[in-house]
Every structure is written in structure tokens, then in C-alpha cells.
């Protein structure tokens, strides 16, 4: 007897859902032997014979749904394992996966498949998506258009409906599959670059939650993945408060050794926290994730130093990667914190007794030193003490992260009105406390916490 049938019989007898699901996994090592075990004429008779005598299959509808499912699966196995190696027709494989999915759907609607078989649904949906992607890739290579992944999303939606519409008592309900399938839909929509459709799920979902167990009752892999995608959707909607909540939740519950997933959560949580809490990741945190260190170190250093021109250079330096990760616009906004830090330094560098009333001229000098940032072209070389010129490397675009951080800006003269405007803006945004006395050209700072949250 082919191993696959043995596994099938054992899984049904012991009600081992994970084992049953593994049969339909793209990685099932027994698929090959299964593909070679018979031929198109005999497959149905073989399946009927191999699964006969199981008590679980006494119900004729249950049994025939399993026969359909295994026969459909064999046809895919045949295409993937026996069609000529180099050029598997993914289009054919995709059609096969769709038949398999429909057979599975009938298993639940007509064949009374119990809820513990949910891993079968998971694996079949997962494979459909995988094959759709491979089929689309193949089509693109051949210069054809292919929309299998979009099509797959519609079929996975059928599984979603199967889950949420189950009326069985909750202990044995398919509702337990809801988040797994939702997560798969999220992944699919992100792959299709359709964040709008991902948001749609979140709009539809609450209506289905009424008689659903609370999220915390689900397996952690479902929760963490769900929270990650909720967080990313909030992030992309610039709802940073919710993004922070979702992503922090995901991070805290994530399996400690799932480095890649933690890295992904932090890719969004770090820029989020920079904006919501004005906080930077610690060096210890970054050192644990080399990829994140490369991604964020230059920008964090320049935020810390207040060197605005270096900030712009760091942003340009990482632009391609930031855009790819969809975090560019958010990082751009952290320039406010860099400027806050620059102004904070101006205050700290004053004599102790002069720290509440500071001439705007001092901030003007600081803006000049910081190269003003890329915003404007007011740039008149600021050659007062003669060394302005040779320090000017700071404006270079192409530099490695470290050079970017170390560079000294080309100094520029900034209009006093512009500086006043920037200061007013900082005060408006709550990054500084105080007011500008225009007749004295002075910034009057609050005696208590002029830079909230920075211990100054």
C-alpha cells in the first residue's frame, strides 16, 4: 500500500487533523510515490479500494467526498511529478488545484467533514495560492498575462465563507479556521499589491465576529499573523496609533525564535514608534537583527545628532529599500524629530542661566550648520571662517551609511523668518513648549520640560 494511503487511514482513525492536512502539503514527500502508484484509468478504483473499511467513512457522502478529493489530488500529483520535468504546465496544475479545492468544499458542505479536518482546508488553499503564483510567474516569463492569483483569491474566499457560515456548536465549528484563511487572504492581496482589498477584509470581518470566540482563544500562529497584517494595514493608512497596538501585540506573542517574522514586525514597528513615541530602537535591539541595523542605523544616528543634511542623505541612501518596504513616507516624517534634537542641542549648549530665553539667531546658526536639510536652495556658501568649503561632503548622495552619518553639512544661510516658522511649527506639533517673542527675536521656552519626553 502506498504510504500516502496509510497516512490517510491513520489520520482518520486517530482524528489527527495536522497529519491529514500534511497529505495535501506541497512538501509531502509521499506525493511522488502516490503519483506513480497507478494510472488515469485505475485511480478511482484504487482510491475506493485503499480507503475501504474505515468506520469514519461509513457515511456515503463523506466517503464519496474523500474519493473525489483524493482523485483530484492524484491528478495534480501526476502533473507535478510525472509530466516532463523541465516544463511542468502550471496552468494545468492550477486547474487541478481548483478542482481539488472544489472537491474539498463539497467535503464540508455535503460530506459532513468534521472541524478537526480543517488543516486539510488550510493546505489545499495554501497550495492553490502557491501554484497560482508559480503559474503567473511562468506566464510572465513567456510574455503572457496571467491572473491566476486573483482567481485563487476568489476561491480562497469560498473557504472563508465555509468557516464563518458554520452553524455547528462552537467546540466543533469551522469558525476556528477563520483567521487562518483570513491571513492567507491578506498574504494574497499583499502579493497582488492590493492593500485596498486587504482593508476590505477588515471591514467585512467584524460582522462575522458576533458568535466567534475571542481572538486570544485561537492558536498563536493565527493571532500573530493576523495582528501583523492588521498592523501593516493601519500603518499604510497612517493610523499609527493602531499600528503600534497591533504590531506590539504581534511582537510580544511571536515565537521567540522566528527571527524573520520578528524582523518583519519590527520593520513597521520601528518607524511607527519613532512617530508615535518619538523613540528610537536601542542598539541592542538592532544588533539582534542585522538586516534591520543596515536598514535603520544611518537614519537613527542622524535623527539623534540633528544633522539634517545627513538625515536627508540617509533617507536618499536607503530610498530604494524604504520604498520597497513601504516605509519611506513615514521615515520622511521623522525629520521633525531630527530637527527637535537639533534645537534641543542649541538649548543644551547655552550657559545654564540662559536656557529659557534664546535668541532666534542661535537657531538660525544651528539650521545653517545642519545644512538646513534638503528642502530649499537658499544655499549661499557660508564661508565665514574659511573652512566651510572643504567640509562640504555632507551633501553627497552616494555614500555608505557610515559616511552619511559622519558627514558635516555644507553650511548654509537660512532666512530668519524661515527659522521662526520652523520653531513655531515645532511648538504647534508639541515637540517644544514655549513661544516666540518677535520684538525681541527671542524664543522663550517653558521652564518645565521645554522638550517633552526628552528629560529636558
Amino acid at each position, binding site marked *: 500500500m502506498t504510504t500516502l494511503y496509510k497516512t490517510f487511514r491513520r489520520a482518520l482513525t486517530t482524528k489527527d487533523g495536522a497529519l491529514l492536512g500534511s497529505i495535501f502539503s506541497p512538501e509531502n514527500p509521499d506525493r511522488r510515490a502516490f503519483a506513480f502508484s497507478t494510472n488515469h484509468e485505475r485511480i478511482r478504483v484504487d482510491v475506493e479500494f485503499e480507503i475501504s473499511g474505515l468506520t469514519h467513512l461509513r457515511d456515503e457522502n463523506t466517503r464519496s467526498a474523500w474519493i473525489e478529493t483524493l482523485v483530484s489530488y492524484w491528478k495534480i500529483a501526476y502533473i507535478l511529478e510525472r509530466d516532463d520535468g523541465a516544463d*511542468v504546465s502550471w496552468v494545468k496544475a492550477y486547474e487541478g488545484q481548483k478542482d481539488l479545492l472544489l472537491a474539498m468544499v463539497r467535503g464540508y458542505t455535503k460530506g459532513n467533514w468534521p472541524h478537526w479536518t480543517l488543516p486539510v482546508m488550510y493546505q489545499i488553499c495554501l497550495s492553490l495560492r502557491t501554484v497560482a503564483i508559480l503559474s503567473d510567474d511562468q506566464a510572465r516569463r513567456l510574455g503572457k498575462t496571467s491572473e491566476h492569483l486573483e482567481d485563487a483569491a476568489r476561491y480562497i474566499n469560498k473557504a472563508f465563507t465555509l468557516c464563518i457560515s458554520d452553524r455547528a456548536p462552537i467546540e466543533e465549528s469551522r469558525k476556528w479556521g477563520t483567521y487562518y484563511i483570513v491571513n492567507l487572504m491578506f498574504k494574497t492581496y499583499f502579493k497582488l499589491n492590493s492593500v485596498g482589498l486587504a482593508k476590505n477584509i477588515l471591514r467585512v470581518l467584524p460582522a462575522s465576529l458576533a458568535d466567534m470566540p475571542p481572538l486570544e482563544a485561537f492558536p498563536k500562529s493565527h493571532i500573530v499573523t493576523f495582528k501583523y497584517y492588521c498592523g501593516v494595514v493601519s500603518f499604510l493608512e497612517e493610523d499609527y496609533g493602531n499600528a503600534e497596538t497591533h504590531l506590539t501585540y504581534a511582537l510580544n506573542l511571536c515565537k521567540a525564535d522566528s527571527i524573520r517574522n520578528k524582523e518583519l514586525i519590527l520593520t513597521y514597528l520601528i518607524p511607527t514608534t519613532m512617530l508615535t513615541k518619538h523613540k528610537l530602537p536601542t542598539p541592542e535591539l538592532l544588533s539582534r537583527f542585522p538586516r534591520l541595523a543596515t536598514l535603520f542605523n544611518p537614519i537613527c544616528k542622524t535623527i539623534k545628532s540633528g544633522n539634517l543634511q545627513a538625515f536627508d542623505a540617509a533617507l536618499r541612501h536607503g530610498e530604494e529599500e524604504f520604498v520597497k518596504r513601504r516605509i519611506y513616507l513615514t521615515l520622511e516624517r521623522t525629520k521633525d524629530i531630527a530637527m527637535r534634537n537639533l534645537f*534641543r542641542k*542649541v538649548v543644551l549648549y547655552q*550657559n545654564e542661566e540662559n536656557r529659557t530665553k534664546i535668541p532666534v539667531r542661535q537657531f538660525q*546658526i544651528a539650521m545653517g550648520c545642519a545644512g538646513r536639510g534638503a528642502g530649499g536652495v537658499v544655499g549661499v556658501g557660508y564661508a565665514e571662517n574659511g573652512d566651510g568649503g572643504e567640509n562640504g561632503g555632507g551633501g553627497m548622495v552616494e555614500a555608505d551609511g557610515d559616511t552619511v552619518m*559622519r558627514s*558635516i553639512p555644507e553650511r548654509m544661510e537660512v532666512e530668519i523668518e524661515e527659522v521662526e516658522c520652523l520653531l513655531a511649527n515645532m511648538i504647534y506639533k508639541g515637540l517644544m513648549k514655549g513661544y516666540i517673542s518677535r520684538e525681541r527675536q527671542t524664543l522663550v521656552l517653558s521652564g518645565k520640560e521645554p522638550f517633552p519626553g526628552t*528629560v529636558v
Partner: protein
Amino acid sequence: MSSSSKPSKTATDPKDSAATDKSNKDTQKQTLSLEEDDEFEDFPVEDWGDGETETQNPPGGKLWEESWDDDDTTEDFSTQLREELKKNPTK
């Protein structure tokens, strides 16, 4: 070309020649796994205990910097800024 390990193709129907064709298939068969750059990975297990999350075993201490004051005082930019500000001291 002599290094090619593949013996010349015996024109058999692939459906009946599983064994002879195996080495070829193993290398050429596309595996059904995707190398997604920024896709959230499937976890190797469905569920885990509270002890296996990081909140229970924080390896790296704090996530976020508490202070802005440990900046690099040897940093050229800060030094220069300080000097420039001194040239125009507060009256």
C-alpha cells in the same frame, strides 16, 4: 560538455520510466516553495506556550531608547555646532 552527467536521453515515455529519469527530475522539478522577500512566514508550529514568546525571555533588554543624551560627543557635527553657537553667544 563532457562533464554533463546526464546520459543521452533514452526516448522512453516519462510515465513509465520513473526510476531512470529520477535524477533528472529531482534537479529540475520545481519545488512548490516560494522565496518571498517580505512575506510573513508560516510558523513551523501552529501554537506555542507563553514561555516561548519573547516577553517571557527578553534577550536584549529594552526595545526603545529612553534617553537622547548619550549622543556621541566626539561626533564632528556636534563639535562644530557647539563652536558655531559660541561665536554668537547669548547676551
